[in-house]
């Protein structure tokens, strides 16, 4: 569970890190636990609004990395990059002029990459709006647990969709 600087070399690692190690394994459960406290399924020490604020801070700190992951999908996950390294880099120069581009275009079309990234961007936007809605409640010192729980529910639903959307982005370099 490392903190990665996003480059084309580690795009797939970053995808795994953000979607599985952070969003799926840790952050979703953190938000879900807040909901459990709001609706009285659990009790815990400390003020619930402070816990929510802390969780939202985590979100704000990570969402840019998620955005960068989505935005760089087309450039960093493309199979055309394989032509930068052996053995494909050994292809003849005239082939390298057209084949990587063809492979890239075919990849975009066959796997509907642009659509997938659009959906992921949209999901991120919805999640961020849900986080903002929750943040507003906290800022306004609204201590109604039902309203907080409802706002957290919206955030959880958005996170679920976001995780699914990132999960549909390529897991590995795909030629076929």
């Amino acid at each position, binding site marked *: *569970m*490392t*903190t990665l600087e996003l480059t084309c070399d580690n795009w797939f690692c970053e995808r*795994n890190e953000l*979607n*599985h*190690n952070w*969003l*799926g*394994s*840790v952050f*979703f*459960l*953190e938000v*879900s*636990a807040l909901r*459990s*406290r709001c609706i*009285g*399924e*659990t*009790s*815990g*020490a*400390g003020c619930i609004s402070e816990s929510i604020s802390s969780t939202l801070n985590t979100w704000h700190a990570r969402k840019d990395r998620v955005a960068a992951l989505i935005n760089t999908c087309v450039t960093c996950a493309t199979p055309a990059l394989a032509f930068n390294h052996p053995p494909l880099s050994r292809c003849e120069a005239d082939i390298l002029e057209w084949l990587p581009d063809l492979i890239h275009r075919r990849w975009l079309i066959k796997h509907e990459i642009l659509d997938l990234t659009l959906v992921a961007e949209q999901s991120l936007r919805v999640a961020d709006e849900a986080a903002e809605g929750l943040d507003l409640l906290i800022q306004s010192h609204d201590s109604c647990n039902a309203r907080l729980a409802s706002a957290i529910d919206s955030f*959880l*639903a958005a*996170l*679920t969709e976001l*995780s699914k959307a990132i*999960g549909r982005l390529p*897991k590995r370099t795909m030629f076929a």
Partner: protein
Amino acid sequence: MLPRILVIDDLFGRDVTRGRNTARENLCAHFHLRDVTGDAACTASEQVVLNPQAEAVFHRGQLPIAARVGDSIENDLSGTLAAVMWRNNQRSEMRPPEAPPWAMVLVDLCFYTGAVTEESDNKTSGMPPGSPGDDDPESYFGLTLLDAIHGVQPDLPILILSSKPRDEVSLEFAKKGALGFIPRNDPKGHETLREALWIHGLLSDPSGEIVGSSLRLLLALRDARRASRTLGHLLIRGERGTGKELLARYVNRMSAQEGAANKRPFVPVNSAAFAQNLFASELFGIRPKTASGVDGKTGLIERANGGDLFMDEIVDMPAETQAAMLRVLQEGQILPVGAREPEQINVRFLSATNADVENINGGFRPDLLDRLRMGGTLSLPPLRERSTDIPQLVEEIVREAEARQKAALHRSVTVEAIALLQSYEWPGNIRELRSVLIAAVSRFPGVEHLVPSHLEFNRPKDTAELSNPSWTSKQRKNERIRLDESDDILALIKLIERVDFESTNVPQWANKLHSLNLSWQRLLARYLAAAIAVTKRRTASVPQGEIQIHPAVKLITGNQQITATKAADLVKKILKPLKGELEGDLLEAFTIAERLRPRSAVRNDREHDQPRGA
């Protein structure tokens, strides 16, 4: 009592040397689990799950469990298997006494290994950054664990709990015996887990009507729960006195919980009880006739409409009743006496038998039998195959017997009496056990302790052997020679030392080194087993006793200063050559030793074999 599940996961299972394992706390909140791991992370938790659906013991699956910067994290297959086996061994004496098997095991897929770095520790305390291959679906450690656990515990329900994509491993996990996949971020996490527990879990009867938590019983209850969903007719098999009606009632209750808020009717009937000329009116009822003044009567099947009719001992059903029942099952209709039109019914038939109904003399209609087991057949184990349930049953029955007596004493049942009861075959099963205990309470109203002499039943001849039933039953089976108090172990040692191998006898003893060595190891193992048996810690709540390898080793070595770790080494040294054939106390002792000393090399020295000053 809440079901207890084992969660094997590096992130949630790691212990913490400082702070809390908030990831584990959040998982518990999401899935409605109460953390009972008992480690520092559990103790440090500030969260209370108010209405948990299960208790969870978390296991990292790796060593060290609590890691610091610089520690190297390695996957720990044998230690994890030992954690699974500790509660769930099919051999009853292996489990901690009175502890039910794990209701379920949840296994993560990806376990991160390697050295814990400053950076990785700052991010998640005690977690390493991971090594190449950890994240590869082809080599997930979780799948290795799954394979190994399923290999030794095929009846144990195992599910994957992971944030990884299900489709990457769906074929592999099914092949390796996992029953399902629960995403960590399942929006309905606790409901998904509840459903999985209901379908796959090894759960005791929450009503307490069916007493016991042995693996055999819990498997039967699981089959019953699964079958209850189909609402198809069921056949329940089991020896007399095993509680077939109780199982039928359990099926009825489980179906009601599944279906609707209303309880389903449950109508028990004895199949032999109907006189041939009365069965129609009893089963199908009578419609009133104003003109003739005949009173109406609701039949048993009608009373069970929308629910279950339990027919006990179906082999005793008269032939005419069988024919009538076949029509009911075929058409789903009854024709009450005096009615002009048949009436539609919606009844599930739960039949029971202790007979070989397919081959019964006089015959039972096979076409009727097929319909009576359309929804499946359930089997109840005999009491002799679930003897670990006897302490619980004894407690329940003795309290029940005391409640019948005014000013009855609150009795305890001695360890010897429990051991005696567990050694008996119980041909009449729980009914026979109940009779024996109720008679004992009734005949000895003034005693606080029930001892073997209070129990009247057809006990085994040599009750003197019953101080350790599991040990002596093996002795009888294998006809071993017992060294009792009249024999001197020194004589045995002298005998062994006098054995010589004559060169005239080469064909017989040649090529026997391996066998001879194994025999020697087995002798040492039996010596250790005897020491384990006498050094068990027995209490009223744990009548079978808990194994303590340290005192056992002190006894056989005469070395009172030997450390626990050296004792574990010695146990491993004695038992390792016999690993494949260990069972019972010895298998448990070996598991304990392995857990204490997972990686110690078993040295061939003799330092801890010698008493101090010897």
